[in-house]
Structure formats: structure tokens, C-alpha cells
């Protein structure tokens, strides 16, 4: 006797909670064979603003965690994905990837997280330094997280690219609002569940699903997003740059026309961590 399975209602992970879009809108997701799979939240500008608020609340606490603690938590996220690797691979395969390719993407994603987990308590030693000023001052430059980072994931490599983009930002204590692949949103939905069980405080990573066209203008102009990282086409890059000018926002965008090989070693770097950091220099007199 066959049993009708219980299907899961996809929800996005924002502020540590699983929510539907405030607009109550959804869009249907089909599997590679064209069969209906589930309705995905079609998030709005308002959802984005709410997510930024959640990220703002989580920010100071996350940035104040010790580097050692942030490293352990990011490692824990790797553990959570590894433990559910099969399920995640199926989510990726929905988009048409072969089982082997999907499993490879999950494995590469976990490895990427482990890579950044290890950076958490080391990047400062390489990026900051003491400056030998020509006067009796102790002068040092350290890094600080920029704050809330907007992430625009590309359509392909729906898990690996998304994680490759946000992991360096949270490694240093930033919080993130990310828009997942529109055509392959389900891995991001599932990733939310893994984030929720990873010890990462709610609001540190907020994942939205929906249409880029609706969301990009608000990513561009939201004053509290201090930097945008991700992939964008020529029109989006121009729109994002115009919006960024209003609040002197930092942009680190790759072209969708020439995306990096997300599996390559070059897709992970100290520079990716640096791209969402500010340098701060402090002068202190030396004297009795």
C-alpha cells in the first residue's frame, strides 16, 4: 500500500525564523522533468528591508564574538551541511544537475566553509599591522567588519556560489542579506534549515528568494547595506552602482557574463574576506 508523502512548504530564513513573504506571493518551482515541486516565497522589497533590520540587530553581537568562536560556528555550519549532504544534493539535483555533480557541489560547499572557518582568527594578523610612524606614537591598523552586506547569488551553482559569497563576509563579523538563485532557489531554502541548527545567531545570515528584477533596486539603494557582493549582469551593475553612489556603498561584483569557477581554489581567498572589511588606524601617544 502506497503512502502519500508529506511535502514541505518552503520558507525563507530571516532573523532566525522561517517565514513566508510578507506579500503572501509565491512562485512555482518545477523539477528538472517539469513537474511541480513546491511554491517558493516571492520576496519583496519590504521583505528585504525587514531582513536588513534583522541583520542590523544581530550585527553588533556577532561582530563582538571572539574570532575563535566565529570560526567554530562556521565550522559547525559545515558539519550541519555534511550531515545532510544527501538531502542537499537532491535539492541541487532538482535544478537538473546530475547526482554526482550535485554531491560534488555539496562537498565543495562544506570545504569552502571549513576554509573560511579557519580564517576567522588569522586574517587580522595578515591584514592589519603596526605602523612605524615618525613620531612618538603607537600607531596600529586593524580591520573591522563593514556591517550589513548584501549578497546577490548567481543563477548557477545555487549552493556553492551563494556560500562562497557570504562566508567570507560573516567570517569577519559582518551580517548578510542574500538573494538566492531565482531559477534554483531550493538549495537556499534547505540551507536556511542548516543555518538554523548551526549555532549561528539568528539574523547573521538572512536568505531571500524571489525575482532579481524586483529586489535589485532596493539592494542598490538601501542605505544600511554597506557593501554589495555577488554576481550581476551589465544592466544590474549599472543600477547597483548608481544606487550605491547615494550612500557611498562599496561594490564587489563579478560579471554574470564571466563568472569565476566556483570550484577552483581561486574562488576562495583572504581578499574575499578583506573586501567586506574597513581598515581603522588608531594613534596613541607613547609617554609616561
Amino acid at each position, binding site marked *: 500500500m502506497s503512502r502519500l508523502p508529506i511535502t514541505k512548504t518552503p520558507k525563507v530564513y530571516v532573523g532566525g525564523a522561517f517565514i513566508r513573504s510578507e506579500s503572501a506571493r509565491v512562485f512555482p518551482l518545477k523539477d528538472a522533468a517539469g513537474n511541480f515541486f513546491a511554491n517558493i516565497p516571492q520576496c519583496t522589497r519590504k521583505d528585504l528591508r525587514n531582513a536588513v533590520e534583522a541583520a542590523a540587530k544581530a550585527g553588533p553581537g556577532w561582530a563582538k564574538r571572539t574570532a575563535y568562536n566565529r570560526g567554530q560556528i562556521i565550522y559547525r555550519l559545515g558539519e550541519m551541511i555534511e550531515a545532510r549532504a544527501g538531502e542537499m544534493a537532491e535539492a541541487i539535483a532538482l535544478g537538473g544537475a546530475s547526482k554526482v555533480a550535485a554531491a560534488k557541489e555539496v562537498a565543495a560547499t562544506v570545504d569552502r566553509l571549513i576554509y573560511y572557518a579557519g580564517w576567522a582568527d588569522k586574517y587580522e594578523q595578515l591584514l592589519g599591522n603596526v*605602523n612605524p*610612524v615618525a613620531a612618538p606614537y603607537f*600607531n596600529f591598523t586593524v580591520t573591522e567588519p563593514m556591517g550589513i552586506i548584501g549578497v546577490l547569488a548567481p543563477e548557477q551553482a545555487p549552493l556553492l556560489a551563494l556560500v562562497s559569497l557570504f562566508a567570507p563576509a560573516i567570517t569577519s563579523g559582518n551580517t548578510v542579506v542574500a538573494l538566492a538563485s531565482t531559477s534554483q532557489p531550493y538549495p537556499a531554502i534547505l540551507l536556511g534549515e542548516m543555518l538554523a541548527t548551526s549555532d549561528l545567531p539568528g539574523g547573521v545570515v538572512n536568505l531571500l528568494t524571489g525575482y532579481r528584477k524586483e529586489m535589485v533596486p532596493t539592494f542598490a539603494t538601501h542605505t544600511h547595506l554597506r557593501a554589495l557582493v555577488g554576481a550581476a549582469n551589465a544592466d544590474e551593475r549599472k543600477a547597483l552602482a548608481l544606487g550605491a553612489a547615494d550612500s*557611498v556603498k*562599496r561594490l564587489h561584483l563579478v560579471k554574470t557574463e564571466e563568472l569565476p569557477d566556483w570550484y577552483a581554489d581561486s574562488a576562495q581567498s583572504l581578499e574575499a574576506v*578583506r573586501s567586506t572589511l574597513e581598515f581603522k588606524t*588608531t*594613534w*596613541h601617544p607613547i609617554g609616561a
Partner: protein
Amino acid sequence: MPTLASEKKTTRPSARPGRPAPELIFGDLWEFDPAPETADPKLKARYELFINGEFVAPKSGKYFDSVNPANEQKLAEIALASAADVDAAYQAAKAAYDNVWSKLPGRERAKYLFRIARLLQDRAREFAVAETLDGGKPIKESRDFDVPMAAAHFFYHAGWADKLDYVAPGRRVAPLGVVGQVIPWNFPLLMLAWKLAPALAMGNTVVLKPAETTSITCLKLAEILQDAGLPPGVVNFVTGAGEVGAAVMNHPIPAKIAFTGSTEVGKIIMRSLAGTDKKMTMELGGKAANIVFDDAPLDQAVEGIVNGIFFNQGHVCCAGSRLLVHEPVAKEVLAKLKNRIKVLRVGDPIDKNTDIGAINSKEQLGKITSLVASGVKEGAEMFQPACKLPTKGFYFRPTIFSGVSMSHRVAREEIFGPVLSILTFRTVDEAIEKANNTAYGLSAGVWTDKGSRILKMSTELKAGVVWANTYNKFDPTSPFGGYKESGFGREGGRQGLLDYCKLV
């Protein structure tokens, strides 16, 4: 014979609880004779564009006057570049990059920069006088700060040119190509050095536009570049106002644009570059909080406050223009400040005793005047010493506003003049909240005797530079640049080099 007990009865100014120290009114007792710096600035009557290693007349044949803001007299006429001149400069820069500069080993590039530093040191006094005549800053500042610091920037960056493998750990770096740079009028020669030295050390070639009111030391430096034998086209200077700047920004050749100036103009540039692949560095405005706690050494703090806001007539993007004073010492600090600024000498910038020189231009004087009027209108209490100002030239009295609230324009907008706004706070958290409550984030100052508090404040203040128990200190080894709407990118130090290279 005095006993210990009788010694204790002796009262000293520092031992009069609740009463300020006695006032010393130097003005009535001391008359300063004029002490002008007399070194010859060796100015030419006319300055041409500097393109491809030569001084060339602008294609339009047009020139504009550079005036001395201290007396409104014409100093020289400066070539007005057109788009065609800017294009010629970029073509020269590109040819120099492709054929010469990118092929030179770093150690050879270094030698040119060392030479420039040395030649500038040789002619330091001449440059200092030229800088003061053209820009209005006191000679003691151009002599002791601007020119030596500019030379130091060339010397520091020279040594990097053959050590670039150490700039980005684990990565190789490469120059970007041709860089377009636009600099402001507040530190004409120093900003030029901040821009040129790292760009050249990294192997880029440059087209740079100085501000239209302060082109002279830039074009004098061109003489040094010739004397140093710098290959033609590696550095090109085009002069003029905003439209020349726009031509520099929007030309297709530069791979990177570096700008120092107001946040307003920075945003316009960012918009104009939207949709291009040009990299950018923006060093923009500020409204820095200078925070004084009740345990601070107050006399020292008052000196720091004065230096923070009246240095270079307050034409400083990182000026400590918002003074946040801990309530228990607010009255005392205000009284000390008033006494202190009564004895600041405002006047002829070329006089070696002058503390506050001339406002850079009539336009800037108008801007300061109108913002100060808004402060009075919005209800802040204004204090200005009754000093005599020269009859000709552009001058503004050092000005203090007390009773300022966060919503006042004088607490929010960058005045870029000798105007200090004083606010008070009760707790550390309130100080942090008020200090960070601005779109800017360039710099901040903290005055306290408590080391742990300095480190906490430094961590919490959203600013690129934090001065603890000091203010307005700069060094080529020390990265400078802003958070938030004060811009992005750093200048100086290892970190500053990162903005002039790509990782390969």
C-alpha cells in the same frame, strides 16, 4: 622656616577647586612685529599644462588667474585645459605605461621616487612659500607640515616599488595601468604626494588635476619631475575647474579614478562612473567627533581641540569639528577654549607668527559665513574673539558654538572652516551614539587618561582614523581613509597600496 603644614597652604592655579585658572591676556602685553617668511617662491608669470614631460600651452589658448587669498592679488595665470588636452594627457600616460613604466623593474621606479623626495626636500622652503601664497595656509604649517610630509610620502612609497610581493599575502600584484586623479585645494602639494607616490610605486602612470585655486605647487612639482628625469608621460598635470575634472573622470583610458574632495562631488563621480569597470578610491568629507572625558588632561585636550579644528583654517576633511565634552567638565573646557582662541593670531599667512591664515577662496568664505549664520539662527551660542582681520583678503575669525544639538546644521554639515560646534554627553554610550550619528566616518578623537576606555572608544567609533589624546597626526606609514559616506580606500601604509593594484 616654613613647616610642611604652611607649605600646604600655598595656593597654585591648579589647586583652586571649582575655579578656573587665572586668565593670561597676551594680546594686551605683547605686540608682535611682522615676521614674514622671505624665501623666494620662484613663481612664473604663467603656468602651462604638463603633458608628456613638457610644459605645453592649452589647445584653447585660455588661462585663468590664481590669486593669493591673503590679499586678493594675482599670483600667476594657469592654463585652462580642454577635453582635447585631457585626452592628450591620457594618450601620453598610456604610451608611457605601455612602453616605459610597466617595463621598468621596481627598483628603478623606486629610484625616481627617491629622487623626487630628495629634490623636494632641497626646495622645501621655496615650495612652502609658494603653497602659502597660493592657498592661504600659515607658513608655519606649509613649512613644518605640508612640504616635509609630501617629501616623506615620496620617500616612503619609493621603498615599496621593489617590494610589492609583500603587499598582499600569498598573492602577486600588478599595476592597474593609467590612473586619473583629482585633488582638493586644502593640502595641494600633500594630496598630490598622497596620490602620486603610491600610484607610481605600484607601476601605474597618472593624469592628475589639482584644484583650480591651488595649481601652482603642482606645476612647480612638474619642474622637479623634469629634474628627476622621470620618463615623459608617466605623470601628467591638467589644470582647470570642475569640467576639466569631469573630463579626467570620464575619459575611457583610466583603469582607476582616485578622488579627494567633498562627499557631494564624490557621489556625482560615482554616478558618472556607474556602468564602467573603473576602480575607485574616494576620500570624501567628514564631521569628526572629538570626545573629551572628565578624566582627560584638560590643558592638553584644549590644545588638541584647537589643533583639531583650527589647523589649516579648518579646511581639513578630518577636522575635529564636533566637540563632545563630558558634562562635568563642559564649563571648564569651554572657558579654557575661549581663553585659548583669544590669543590665536589670525592674519597674513606668510607671517611666521600666524596661527590662522586666509580662507582659501571667496566662495569658501561665503559658504562658511552662511553656515555660521545658520548656527546663530538655530539658536546655538556663538563666540568669536575680537581679533583684527586684514582689510583685504578672505579671513574668518575662529568660531565656537556652544549649546549645539545634534539636529543643528552646524553639527551635521561639513563647514570646512574654523568653526567648532560643542555638544555634551553624560555616559560613554551617549558619546559613542552621538559620535556615530552621522553619515560621515572619517576620523575621531578621544581624550581620556584611561587606556581601556581609549581602546573601547576606538573599537566603537565608526571612523577610519582614531586619534587618542592627540589629533590631526599624519604619517606616510599610517593608512588614512573613511567609513560610510566619508569614502572608501586608504591612503598611506601597506593598505593604501592595495588600492592601486590588481591581484594576479
